């Protein structure tokens, strides 16, 4: 009796599904346990020979095609000597590098490396020549003066990135990306290194404290979305005008047709 019952249980149509689910849960659990383990143990040391060696291997496997085996640059990519850890952390950490294709500017895509690998790459490139370092945590956590940051943002950034940080178009296919979901570290690194066609805002132009304020302002914008109605992408009068021309006038035309149509 029990035997037949067990056999019936094993042959139940949902048995395969249950088995699969069980297997997946175990694999996932084991993977999660292992990967949290590596994160917990790894506090990457910027100066250790091992970090730099690991970074060099990653670099030669993934970046050297364009930037050269010793990061000296080729016809397809600039020299990375002296760009600093901040530049690598920004370009690789936001998924812009390795570059998908040559074009007006590097497009964002899913990040190709783990956080540790990004750091190893960054410290390898930093070891080639002095350059801006990855900023300290207290500068990027948004604990500054949002009002001062807003003024600096309007003077230095808003013309390209839009006063609401929604991004905007530049010349010949280039564009300033939206800043609505960029982390504080990446905003800071972009200001210091001037990625793509963005100008450099060094520490003598905008001091580290002022950069912290700019990040505070952007974080404030990220946390406090538009208080009034539909944003329509915060792109300004063009988007709003297009919306009202199509939907507002469309509604007026529809009502006019209804008013003048004969009733059945």
């Amino acid at each position, binding site marked *: 009796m029990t035997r037949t019952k067990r056999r019936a249980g094993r042959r139940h149509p949902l048995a395969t599904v249950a088995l699969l689910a069980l297997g997946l849960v175990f694999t996932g659990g084991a993977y999660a346990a292992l990967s949290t383990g590596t994160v917990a143990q790894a506090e990457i040391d910027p100066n250790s020979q091992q970090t730099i060696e690991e970074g060099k291997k990653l670099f030669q496997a993934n970046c050297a095609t364009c930037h050269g085996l010793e990061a000296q640059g080729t016809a397809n990519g600039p020299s990375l000597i002296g760009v600093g850890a901040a530049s690598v952390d920004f370009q690789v950490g936001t998924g812009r590098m390795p570059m998908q294709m040559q074009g007006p500017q590097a497009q964002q895509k899913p990040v190709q490396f783990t956080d540790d690998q990004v750091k190893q790459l960054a410290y390898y490139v930093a070891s080639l020549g002095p350059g801006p370092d990855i900023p300290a945590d207290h500068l990027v956590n948004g604990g500054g003066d949002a009002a001062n940051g807003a003024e600096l943002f309007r003077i*230095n950034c808003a013309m390209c990135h839009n006063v609401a940080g929604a991004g905007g178009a530049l010349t010949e296919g280039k564009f300033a990306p939206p800043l609505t979901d960029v982390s504080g570290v990446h905003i800071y690194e972009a200001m210091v290194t001037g990625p793509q066609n963005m100008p450099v805002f060094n520490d003598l132009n905008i001091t580290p404290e002022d950069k912290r304020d700019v990040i505070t302002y952007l974080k404030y914008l990220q946390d406090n979305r538009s208080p009034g109605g539909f944003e329509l992408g915060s792109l300004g009068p063009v988007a709003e005008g297009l919306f009202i021309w199509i939907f507002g006038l469309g509604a007026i035309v529809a009502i006019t047709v209804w008013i003048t149509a004969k009733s059945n």
Partner: protein
Amino acid sequence: MAQDDHSGTELAAADSSHAVQEFAGSTGTAVIPHDAFENPGFEPHRPRVTDEDPRREKRAQRTVYTLFYLSILGSVWAIAAYMLFPIESNDVGAVRLNNMFIGLGATLALLGIGFGAVHWGKTLMTSAESIDIRHPISGSEATQQGAVEVFRQADEESGFSRRTVIRNSLIGALLAFPLPAVVLFRGFAPQDQIPVELLSHTMWAKGTRLALDPSGVPIRAADVTIGSAFHVIPEGLIDLEHGKLEEKAKAAVLLMRLDPSELNETPDRASWSYDGIVAYSKICTHVGCPVALYEQHTHHLLCPCHQSQFDVANHCEVIFGPAKRPLPQLPIAVDDEGYLIAQSDFTEPVGPSFWERH
């Protein structure tokens, strides 16, 4: 059937296709072609479902009064929302709720009346077609004569045509009367100063240090690394008592450092830059928008208003868009303390064209 205030005869019934020919009054200024296309009259009258089916009629009636009741509801709701969602705190969310609910109520109130009235007219009011013939707008012969007579008599009694000195002096007075207003427009421009001079000169002078916007901290040449863009105001601008914004609007400068090998400078302007550091007016020569969308690798400056593009590597010459002139360059040098200073004011007026400059 409704009638206008002239007479019932002008309102022709739907089936009288000869209405136009029968009308025998004055044609006024209307052009009446003789080979006119004959009026085919109306299509046969088609009754609506509400005319034929009493249940449909009842339903239409219900719809109309429901819309009107909804309108009342909307009005009452708008008042209630004003009390239920007050703007008392500094919370923008409260403003949003308040505006949204009052707006919804008011919308319902107005649309309810509008849609109800139109639906009433379309489904329940009479649907018989009719013509309301246009009547001439000129008065009768006697009225016109009377008006002319009134004018003639007034002229005779007042002596307007006869007493020419009085008349002409009156015309002269009327012509002179608006002149003060025209002259007073001059008051919009700064007093005791010539507008052309004001437009031609800025706060920059020999030796004025370049300072950061908005802090006013002077900039050293060594601070400006390659690829940098600094937003610059003249030192001392923020200490101005008044006219600060006017001066800033003219004197705003964008400072950039390029690799000197990428800079193509004409011999007469080679001394205007310092080791790849160049300073250009930020005011577009088209209509005066601030041009500051700088691309550090292409060295293009883009004006966001009308997409004029300037090439910083070639003295900001116009490479695209409606701007007519390059951006004016501010000649710069370095003083003995290492700070960037202006060699002089701009050598040409900044910003868009005006009457004396085009």
